[in-house]
């Protein structure tokens, strides 16, 4: 008995031992090894997709989209009033310290060098270039918010010696970060492949980033030093010497010109209706040669977002909740000029301001305006997806006893007045309700026309345009203007205006104010406004927290139908301009907002980090 058990034991151990070698050397089923990742172009591409997805943004269709309603392009008309009542912008509002992503990119760069043996040199160079592009873009996102940040280009590894000081890197100068971005983009632009992709980085994407980054650096160098007391730190972490401005403008202009002259891109001019054309220029995802770099989405792959659900006009919504979140302001609407070149103020009162101007149709007050208005904003009398967006605040009933109009509005959207005609439109505007416009306007740009895209079940795959040729034209115009090449600046600006319906050579003279307005109307809701005002150092003046300053307030336009039977004006439309009823606190941007504060934990961990001014 005993012998048998010994035999069994011995044979079992033999069986076990002989199996040892194979059994222990099986490849793990649930871990991907470094050697596998860095030798497989598909896996590296998958990793790149992750890095593209993690690129920081202040406002885009998915990240921070609601903040479009926190400046002067729009206000918030959905539930809660936070963005209509910002007493002052907090100092950490634009804070970014995304060294997690930078570390991952540095790690990838080093790992390709270390492990990749099966990739061709060309493949290696291409991935290397793309990763460095992403790192340069991430640093640009940092420098525009924080000023100079530590430029970390290698993995930092702790040696467990008890002394972490070798890992503590001081902040680089603001100009050093911009110079780093420029040199990195220059180094990689000819190595970036990706053909004509407009979602992965190509040579022209690198040039587009350079065009914008150098323009930011140049205007900070110029306009910061024109302030009564320039914002700077003794070590140059914040503030760029004025002498660098010309160099940066030149670099920006060269990059812009290379894109424009390459012929690789065209302004989108396919649709003969200029208003619809402008909407399509940004939102059409095929046969669109204007878009340089976009963040794309696809419903069928479950890569989608709720931007349309949250922002579609009230009476064309397909869900039973939300809609109407970001509602453009009258301020922005009036910044769109008339096509004859006159200022864009809407004429709701007659010249002597004694009476209304009476319009036959709601949309007539907007007649002959810059076509970009239509492509950006849904205004009274226009439609979306073929359905009229019914915008009417109420009726003005003539009271012959007092010889004045009596204003009648309703709390019920889409209700009729006692004469059987419309009282309040099914899309408002309404003074106090949520989920309906408070300004009398709705957003069109980036709101998806595809059926069912405003439902929570399906949602939208509208793309987010990071860079497009329209911006490059304006970057070129601004840099050319600052460098004294006014003829070229005019040419670039007028090309863009012609696309918007203006006659050829509509501008004969140009100044920065004119260009500022051009950027405001062309690039509205594309994450430019706040950064532009910051780099021109005018944000604290435009948004000075004064309720008497029309730029710091959000205005609304309320249309009314005239009820005055027997009179020539009966059935016509009049318009009231007013401060949007749900808007509370004037926008207040302080000097301490130009550079966001650095988190205390960062300073605790690295005492070499200098605080930004005013914090």
């Amino acid at each position, binding site marked *: 008995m005993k012998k048998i058990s010994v035999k069994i034991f011995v044979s079992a151990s033999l069986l076990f031992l002989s199996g040892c070698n194979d059994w222990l050397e099986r490849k793990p089923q649930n871990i991907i090894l470094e050697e596998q990742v860095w030798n497989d172009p598909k896996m590296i591409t998958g990793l790149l997709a992750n890095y593209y997805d993690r690129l920081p943004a202040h406002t885009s269709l998915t990240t921070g989209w609601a903040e479009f309603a926190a400046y002067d392009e729009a206000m918030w008309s959905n539930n809660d009033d936070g963005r209509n009542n910002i*007493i002052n912008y907090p100092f950490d509002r634009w804070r970014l310290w995304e060294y997690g992503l930078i570390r991952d990119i540095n790690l990838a760069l080093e790992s390709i060098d270390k492990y990749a043996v099966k990739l061709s040199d060309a493949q290696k160079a291409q991935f290397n270039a793309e990763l460095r592009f992403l790192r340069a873009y991430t640093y640009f996102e940092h420098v525009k918010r924080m000023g100079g940040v530590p430029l970390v280009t290698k993995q930092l590894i702790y040696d467990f010696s008890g002394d972490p000081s070798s890992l503590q890197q001081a902040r680089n100068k603001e100009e050093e970060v911009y110079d780093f971005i420029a040199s990195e983009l220059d180094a990689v632009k000819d190595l970036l492949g990706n053909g004509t992709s407009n979602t992965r980085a190509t040579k022209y994407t690198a040039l587009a980033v350079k065009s914008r980054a150098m323009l930011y650096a140049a205007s900070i160098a110029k306009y910061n030093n024109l*302030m009564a007391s320039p914002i700077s730190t003794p070590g140059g972490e914040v503030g760029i010497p004025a002498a660098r401005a010309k160099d940066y403008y030149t670099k920006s202009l060269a990059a812009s010109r290379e894109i424009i002259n390459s012929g690789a891109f065209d302004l989108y001019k396919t649709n003969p209706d200029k208003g619809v054309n402008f909407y399509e220029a940004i939102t059409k995802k095929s046969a669109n040669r204007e878009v340089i770099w976009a963040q794309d989405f696809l419903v069928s792959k479950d890569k989608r977002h709720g931007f349309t659900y949250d922002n579609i006009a009230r009476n064309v919504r397909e869900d039973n909740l939300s809609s109407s979140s970001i509602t453009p302001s009258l301020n922005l609407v009036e910044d769109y000029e008339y096509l004859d070149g006159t200022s864009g103020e809407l004429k709701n009162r007659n010249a002597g301001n004694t009476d209304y101007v009476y319009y036959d149709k709601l949309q007539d007050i907007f007649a002959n305006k810059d076509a970009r208005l239509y492509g950006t904003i849904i205004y009274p009398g226009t439609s979306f997806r073929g359905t009229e967006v019914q915008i009417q605040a109420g009726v003005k009933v003539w009271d012959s006893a007092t010889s004045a109009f009596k204003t009648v509005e309703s709390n019920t959207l889409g209700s009729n007045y006692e004469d059987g005609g419309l009282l309040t439109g099914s899309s408002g505007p309404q003074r106090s309700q949520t989920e309906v416009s408070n300004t009398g306007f709705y957003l069109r740009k980036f709101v998806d026309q595809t059926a069912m895209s405003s439902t929570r079940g399906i949602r939208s795959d509208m793309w987010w345009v990071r860079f497009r040729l329209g911006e490059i034209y304006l970057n070129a115009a601004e840099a050319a203007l600052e460098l004294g090449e006014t003829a070229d600046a005019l040419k670039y600006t007028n090309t863009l205006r012609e696309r918007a319906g203006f006659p050829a050579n509509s501008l004969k003279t140009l100044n920065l104010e004119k260009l500022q307005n051009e950027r405001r109307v062309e690039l509205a809701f594309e994450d430019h406004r706040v950064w532009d005002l910051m780099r021109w150092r005018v944000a604290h003046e435009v948004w000075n*927290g004064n309720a008497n300053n029309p730029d710091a307030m959000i205005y609304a336009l309320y249309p009314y139908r005239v009820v005055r039977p027997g009179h020539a004006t009966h059935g016509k439309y009049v318009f009231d301009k007013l401060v949007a009823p749900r808007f509370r606190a004037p926008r207040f941007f302080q000097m301490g907002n130009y550079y966001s504060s650095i988190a205390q934990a960062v300073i605790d961990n690295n005492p070499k980090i200098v605080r930004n*001014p005013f914090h």
Partner: protein
Amino acid sequence: MKTSIIKGIPALVLAFMVGAAMMGCEKDNRTEPKSVLKGRVVHEGQPLGVRSNGVQLELWQYGYQLFTKIPVHINQDGTFAASLFDGNYKLVRLRGNGPWTDNTDSIDVQLRGSKEIDVPVIPYFVFKNERYAKGEGKVSATFDVQQVATGRTIERVNLYIGTTTIVDPNNNVANAQQVAANLTDLSKPVTLTVNIPAAHASRDYIYARIGVKTSGVGEMLFGMPQKIMLK
């Protein structure tokens, strides 16, 4: 049986909550700071009015591993208070923050028990001889604006009225303003008149307050809020 368990649930939950609360005591057994630092931001001995919740001073304490500021917000009447532990602090007038000139010298504060200090600052503009008056449906203020620190120009003066004692650009029902172009001669008194909105016309009283904005400085300097009896 089942019902008795269900009935017992609230009692059990209560027992857990009481238990958890009592156990929490052990971790939370530090005494709270009991010393109080009080003070005023003054110019020529007079406290200066600022925006509620807007302007701050900072306290720093050396000698610990982590070096973090303690922000001390100034009340709208120019006073401030902070509960602290005894110790030696440096009080810093944060640059570019209040409506006064930058002064990077810190003030040493030795706190033992409680202490009151005056923090002197040099404002750009101050008010003198403020006089408030009420008219039919309106409130007016007459005052002198005096420039103290040079180097910056005046941007505007405002008269705000509000329903509570907190009155500033964000908390008011109406305001009047005079911009720099009409303030060429500061040796003459300035008068501002604001109409009381119809919605507040029947009130017994209203608060009024004047403020001056210096170009290039975010925060305004204010007078003290004045209660105006309307009836």
